[in-house]
């Protein structure tokens, strides 16, 4: 958690307080705005703020892999049982080329419906059209194998390559028009599948490190680390027959921000040999050893261990927080970098992902809406006032996004990026002081 995150409940209370309608001091019969109304305004404001400012940035892989479909023949559809989940992209169901080409919004083709079938197929298809992830707001950059893709219109693609819908080869461009507003078309259709890792196991979290040669390995390599919490424990194990002892040395372990001088060392089940249940020990703050003994177990502990939070060279996608679930390689793979929609708090105890100062903007938005609503409490002057404050805040955020780039100095004969600026006026060196009089 970064500093001063707030829950929906806390923010609703703040808004009601500033409206002079605090739940703590105003009886329920005399209150003007209820919390459901304010929650609606806050959620609306959150979406509005993020869409207008484009502050949330993320990336995702539109992998050049033969995707599995929901079914490979139309007759299979009738055999789906209630509760069986269609894959999220329900239009990706067309086994034969003529079907997906004539079907509106159809993505495909596909000739298998389970990922494990791929090695046994004589022919696999890589799709040129991929549906954009739901959270995508606007694409900022797209790459294939870390090489930027050009974004031509479909009309330009037609002029460039009359057979652009069927040409296969290296992906060099993409377009977003001509198919469907949310469909990303790669040009050309990928000729070779992307590199991918062989993952041992079918579900759960990634627990071990990996080598970049393409195999996720069970025993962690030294690249694994936990770097989110300023805790990088080095653990070693003395295995013996039937019992083990873990000695973990904490180097420079900081006391928690709350001032606690101890923390809890938790041992999770790991690798092929499982610890039957979580075990923990209290460890002191500062440098020191912690020891935890467990009877009748043999296990393998790498030099560094825990839940993997981040891998070198990989960006956490989807959310700032969480645990990586899937790793995609860049080689021959398509990746998009985009501005995304916000994660709207589902419940009142969920945190906003925006920092506290931005939640004030949401407060202005909600107060503007609350004062504008017809009925008791309506005050159009205050509504205008708060809406104005919200709009100014949005403009401020947009300006800040560009502050760093605009800080670059313009140099005579500099790069093309400075073309729009005026060349600075020639000035004497700073040591030269002219007589002001």
């Amino acid at each position, binding site marked *: 958690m970064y500093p001063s995150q707030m829950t929906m409940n806390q923010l609703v209370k703040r808004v009601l307080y500033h409206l002079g309608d605090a739940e703590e001091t105003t009886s329920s019969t005399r209150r003007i705005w209820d919390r459901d109304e304010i929650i609606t305004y806050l959620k609306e404001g959150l979406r509005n703020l993020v869409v207008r400012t484009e502050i949330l940035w993320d990336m995702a892989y539109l992998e050049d892999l033969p995707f599995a479909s929901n079914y490979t023949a139309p007759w299979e559809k009738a055999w789906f049982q209630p509760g069986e989940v269609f894959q999220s992209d329900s239009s990706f169901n067309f086994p034969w080329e003529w079907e997906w080409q004539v079907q509106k919004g159809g993505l495909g083709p596909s000739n298998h419906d389970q990922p494990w079938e791929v090695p046994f197929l004589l022919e696999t298809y890589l799709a040129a059209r991929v549906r954009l992830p739901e959270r995508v707001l606007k694409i900022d950059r797209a790459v294939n194998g870390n090489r*930027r893709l050009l974004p031509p219109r479909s009309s330009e693609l037609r002029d460039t390559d009359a057979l652009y819908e069927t040409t296969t080869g290296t992906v060099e461009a993409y377009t977003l028009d001509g198919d469907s507003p949310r469909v990303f078309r790669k040009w050309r259709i990928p000729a070779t599948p992307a590199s991918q890792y062989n993952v041992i196991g079918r579900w759960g979290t990634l627990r071990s490190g990996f080598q970049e040669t393409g195999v996720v390995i069970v025993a962690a390599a030294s690249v694994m680390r936990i770097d989110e919490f300023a805790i990088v424990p080095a653990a070693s194990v003395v295995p013996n027959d039937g019992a083990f002892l873990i000695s973990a040395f904490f180097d420079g372990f900081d006391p928690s921000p709350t001032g606690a001088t101890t923390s809890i060392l938790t041992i999770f089940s790991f690798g092929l040999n499982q610890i039957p249940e979580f075990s923990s020990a209290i460890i002191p703050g500062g440098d020191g050893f912690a020891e935890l003994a467990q009877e009748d177990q043999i296990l393998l502990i790498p030099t560094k261990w825990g839940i993997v939070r981040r891998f070198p060279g990989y960006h956490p996608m989807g959310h700032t927080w969480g645990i990586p679930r899937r790793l995609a390689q860049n080689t021959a793979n398509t990746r998009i970098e985009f501005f995304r929609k916000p994660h709207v708090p589902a419940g009142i105890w969920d945190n906003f992902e925006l920092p*506290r100062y931005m939640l*004030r903007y949401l407060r202005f938005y909600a107060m503007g809406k609350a004062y504008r609503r017809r009925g008791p409490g309506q005050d159009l002057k*205050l509504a205008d006032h708060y809406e104005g404050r919200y709009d100014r805040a949005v403009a401020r*955020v947009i300006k800040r996004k560009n502050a*760093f780039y605009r800080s670059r100095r313009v140099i005579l004969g500099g790069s093309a*990026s400075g073309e729009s600026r005026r060349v600075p006026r020639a000035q004497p060196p700073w040591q030269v002081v002219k007589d002001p009089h």
Partner: protein
Amino acid sequence: MTYDELIDEVLTRLNEGTSAPPVYWNREDVQEALVDGLLDLSDEVEWNEEVVHLLLLARRPYYDLRTCIEREILSFRGGFSIATQRWLTPRDTRELDFHIYTLWEDNTGSEDQAVLRGLWWLGLHPRPEGDGNTIRAYVTTMPADPVMSEELPEIPEIDEALREYAIAEAYGQDQQTQQYLIHFASYERAKERIRSYVENRLNYDRNWVFMER
């Protein structure tokens, strides 16, 4: 002047005696308003400038400034590489793609260029090969919540700005719209003077030295 003294002033201006029990507004209300005013002022003027060290990790694509710096960051103003002893050149990804090196993301080495994605994601080029290097990041942040017995920040007229903001907030919560707007306008005028002070700190002397006016 301390925040506590400012609270007393605001209560007096609201006709709430500090000795008698409060009628409409108490100290906590005014304190809330002062903190809110400080946040508003800091957000708009960006007077709280800081330099922090950012620990670099091997080939990390982007650093989330919200978590790496652990403050409420407003804007990233610049970076200085300790390894190269150079300032990081601000870049746009289009420049890196089309003018620097097509596969710039594959480059490793000592960082000398930086790109900001969204508002908080800082990318470096080239990416460090190993852990442990640092850059100095020049940022503007929101100040920490003040302790009421502490002095106000040493910025001219900040007491007037906060006082007017707190009075406006008090009237606003009581639906006294006219009073609210009057005092908020006073706050805005004081805020603009503070903004002018912050942005033009050097101008008085500089104008004479460089004959810019």
